[in-house]
């Protein structure tokens, strides 16, 4: 008997789950979680003064679990959409491995637990910001924006941009301009990153009824908006160096990365047809991941080094 059949039974026999721990782990969106940990670490390392490694580790863990909890709530609510799209149909809920109610409870329990833990371990400003981030992703983005507007990932991108701010607040008890600049980088990076993928997967999003930019405004308008956001992203990416809280190495990395992103966005704008267009969009999608990773990796590396040498 498959797990799917378990939850579809209509008789009164017991429905014993076949879900493995790995299925619950998959509910946390581990890849997104790892990105959250990485960006949060960068935000935390921006904090002036010494960091207690135990408190820092526990805070990052709470932030990671909070991000995972919002991922579980997203998978609970979006199971109908996920079942239609090839990229997401093997997720635990649409695959029938975990019942929707279990995913909901799992997400809610972890949400409360991560927020309270961060409050106790670090401070309640950071806990409040984490609670707001979870609420923003699960309710504002997943339940409202995602199904109602092509600006879904523009506004919803804020949820993914909050972790450095939360982590900085966990380390210092306040929100700084530096952490808000990291927020701005992720926030402006999100639209060109996701729309590049949406250009290639537009038919899937259309079938699932998700109003992504290419389905609603058309591929040409999406290409233009990708270019405009990338033109905005490149200078914002350099801001940490210009504002003096990142080194020249970061500045050079951000300028080179920004130039590569603009070149690829221009290519996406020009190549509008067939496989060449899809290839350009997917190149931008993957390079955007490398770009964001590189910026935060330089911050993490140089800030860690400075702390070791201090």
């Amino acid at each position, binding site marked *: 008997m498959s797990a799917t059949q378990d939850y579809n039974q209509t008789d009164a026999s*017991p429905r014993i789950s076949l879900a493995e*721990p790995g299925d*619950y782990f998959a509910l946390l969106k581990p890849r997104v979680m790892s990105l959250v940990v990485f960006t949060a670490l960068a935000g935390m390392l921006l904090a002036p003064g010494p960091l207690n490694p*135990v*408190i820092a580790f526990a805070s990052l863990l709470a932030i990671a679990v909070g991000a995972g909890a919002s991922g579980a709530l997203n998978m609970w609510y979006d199971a109908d959409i996920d079942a239609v799209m090839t990229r997401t149909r093997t997720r635990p809920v649409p695959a029938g491995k975990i019942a929707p109610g279990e995913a909901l409870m799992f997400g809610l329990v972890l949400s409360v637990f991560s927020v309270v833990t961060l409050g106790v371990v670090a401070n309640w400003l950071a806990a409040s910001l984490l609670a707001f981030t979870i609420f923003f992703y699960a309710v504002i983005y997943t339940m409202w924006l995602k199904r109602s507007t092509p600006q879904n990932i523009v506004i919803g991108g804020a949820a993914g941009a909050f972790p450095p701010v939360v982590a900085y607040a966990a380390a210092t008890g306040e929100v700084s301009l530096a952490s808000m600049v990291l927020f701005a980088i992720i926030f402006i990076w999100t639209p060109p990153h996701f729309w590049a993928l949406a250009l290639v997967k537009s038919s899937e999003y259309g079938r699932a009824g998700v109003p992504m930019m290419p389905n609603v405004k058309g591929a040409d308008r999406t290409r233009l908006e990708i270019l405009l956001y990338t033109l905005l992203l490149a200078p914002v990416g350099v801001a940490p160096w210009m504002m003096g809280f990142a080194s020249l190495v970061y500045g050079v990395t951000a300028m080179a990365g920004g130039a590569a992103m603009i070149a690829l966005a221009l290519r996406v704008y020009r190549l509008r047809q067939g496989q060449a267009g899809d290839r350009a969009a997917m190149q931008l999608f993957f390079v955007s991941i490398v770009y964001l990773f590189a910026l935060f990796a330089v911050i993490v590396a140089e800030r860690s080094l400075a702390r070791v040498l201090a």
Partner: protein
Amino acid sequence: MSKHGKIPPLTPEQERARRRRNLAIAFAIVALCILFYVVTMAKLGPGILVRPSI
């Protein structure tokens, strides 16, 4: 529970999955206990050894 009020035996797959879930929960609880213990020590710092004199 079935119509006849008896719980049918679990299949080997169900038993295996349940055992793994139980182990994961046990691991998570132990890890949390350790984490909270270590965090408490870290927050109290050396002050934990300072006792008020009677």
